[in-house]
């Protein structure tokens, strides 16, 4: 089924073949989650928003005109889902003071103009950049982001102080950020 033309998949879903929706999800999940990771303020589960968006698209597929831009439709649904969730969080007392600087949310919203696929490219670039790090640094990041162990545990494992761990994470994030930006810029130059 993965080999079927995309529009044929959509037609099958619309005619009741729910299984045909699986390749649709597979095709867009990476891009959608990357976009959401870049747009969503703290406290929002991006997988939850992504799944909601797919479910909305599935149940409203009869309203979609096959042959037009499915990606644009999916992302407009996701944007709406994200806004709805942000609105819900804003209504929670003290959300800003406890979890999220409001200025940052405004700044995040400013980047909404970037094409959705750009964030999937950035995610791929980030993976490439991770490979350029030394083993020690990658292990550090794996502790933090894969195992999600507390800083104190990282400190115990590495024999370094918690402030030193924090400093190391700060350096690594900046290094990776710069690496990604550099790769994206090079790719854009190559296309221009």
């Amino acid at each position, binding site marked *: 089924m993965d080999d079927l033309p995309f529009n044929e998949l959509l037609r099958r879903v619309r005619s*009741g*073949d*729910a*299984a045909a*929706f*699986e390749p649709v*999800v*597979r095709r867009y*999940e990476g891009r959608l*989650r990357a976009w959401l*990771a*870049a747009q969503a303020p*703290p*406290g929002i589960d*991006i*997988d*939850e928003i*992504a*799944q*909601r968006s*797919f*479910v*909305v698209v*599935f*149940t*409203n597929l009869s309203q979609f005109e096959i042959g037009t831009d499915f990606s644009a439709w999916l992302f407009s*649904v996701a944007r*709406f*889902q994200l806004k*709805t*969730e942000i609105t*819900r*969080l804003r209504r*929670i007392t003290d959300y800003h*003071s*406890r979890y999220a*600087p*409001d*200025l*940052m949310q405004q*700044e*995040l919203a400013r980047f909404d103009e970037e094409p959705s696929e750009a964030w999937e490219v950035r*995610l791929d670039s*980030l*993976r490439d950049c*991770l490979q350029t790090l030394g083993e020690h640094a990658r292990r550090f*990041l*794996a502790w*933090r*982001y*894969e195992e999600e162990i507390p800083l104190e545990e990282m400190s115990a494992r590495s024999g370094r102080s918690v402030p030193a761990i*924090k*400093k190391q*994470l*700060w350096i690594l*994030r*900046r290094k*990776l*950020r710069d690496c*990604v930006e550099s790769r994206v810029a090079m790719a854009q130059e190559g296309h221009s």
Partner: protein
Amino acid sequence: MNADERFELLWNDYLEGDLDDPGMQELRTLLSSNEGYLREAVSLYRTHRMLGLAARNSQQQQDRFVEETLARLPKDRDTFIGGVMKAVQGKREKVARRSSPLAGSRLGWLVSALSLGLGVFYWGGTAFENRAPGVATHPAPVDQTLSNAKFLSLARAEFFGELAPPTGAALATGRDYTLVSGLTKIGFPSGATVIVEGPAVFRVLSDTTLGLDLGECSVHAPPGAEGFRIETPFTRVVDRGTRFSVSVDELSETEIHVVEGAADIYEQSGAAESAQNAVGSNVAASNTGAEIGAGLRLTERQAKRFTQEEGFAVKSTAFDRSRYRFRLPDRVVAYDVKTDEAGDATHLRGVTVQRGGREAHYSTDELIPATLAWFQSNATADRHGHVVVADEMTSPRAAALTRWTLNEGIINPGGSRLPLSTDPVMNRPEVPGQPNTPGFAVTFASPVVNGPGPDVLLMELQTISNPPQGDAFHVSPLSFAGGRKSHTVTNYDLALTSPEAHKLARFQLFRFDVPVHSLEELEREDALGTPSGLNFRALAVGIDLSDLGFAEGETVTGLFFQDAEDDLHVVDPVILCGLPYAGH
């Protein structure tokens, strides 16, 4: 430290979840004053989120995401996802159980269900399309229209991903509420009330209908509220003027126990005949419309279990009256305060406590003050200090705990991981070979009588970097004679997430360079005052003397308290007093 270094420190703490309220305030100021910092913060935040996504983006994780998404698709009568799921990786129930580190527990299933989205759907075919709120029916899926149903009260209620609502708040129609723990009582316009017990996933579907996907609830529909409904994944329970309990387990199987009156149960879709056949003569004809088919009437002291193993089935189960919860547990319900010009709490004015099922309000004039009779810190100096006062240090320092001020107290007492099982040792001077007991003791201005529910009130100050449920402590009798015992409090009635926990006015925190071994040292040793940060709140918990082995009506003149040493955070009492006797 220059501004760049300070920004780096604060932003890093923010990303690591270590930033406290004063830090957040400082960060906000920095971000608003320097656009460069703001851009840097956002780009690093994105890198941080992307790293999290990259870590989770293995093929296995992608498969799981796809699987979870497909599991959330609404069921269609003709082409349900069963085929899809087989094509992916097996049945959803197995996935749900495997995917959670808490597998096996109801909470674990709840967490799985949340992540898989299973908890938010009915599996009722086309009826789902019409009724179920939220994600599957419309591009504007989250219906925030407020219903006429209200949260009447909450007891240690913790909701997933959000703060607990204030008492009296209306529920949004169709919105999923995920009660992770605790209880809440919901009132409907008809007079029907429902007590939902966490973990539970529920929603208000209309002014007469509550949806329950998981968990337990107890329904009371007084005269005039007949027709009130509970909808579960398999059943629709229509009240006929009654009290009954509904329990939905991890497999969506539903158990209903009728305590009083009668209730009619219908299957959500199809298979009505099988239900009829299964219950034989006990089936009553439906009077609510052909679309829900025939129903089963349960009357007083009857119970049934409804499953969907190989089609809808009704099974016998023993009636259990204890499944029905008549009321929320006794607890501290709320407290009222005096505030400063900024609106922050400075003094306690009174407290509302449910005792023996009845709420009572006590002004501070009616409360029984306590005097600090013993204090010993742990063996090393506590850098967080021991005395909290609103402004300047006053004498005696120990009176900070006796006054009705909420931003004054005696904090960070010594503790022990294990609660006391023998009388606390409080010798002055310390007797060689008999080490004094770390902690603090109080004596009450008049004896506190053990009545129903809480008899003693403890309040502590807490901020966001502390455990939201409150700092655990042991409370012990001064004498263990007569079978008395220690009791450990781990969850406060009014926690940091409770809307009833008031924000406190600023205070001064006095730190000591040395450990404090006695009340005398507490009064005598040099202490350096530093202003507090923002956003401290006062938590509250009621202590039932019965939990310490005191008999009903028995009197207590004093108690001993120790931090439970379950973590790095130590209890910070600001109010400790007795409640007037509530016996009959």
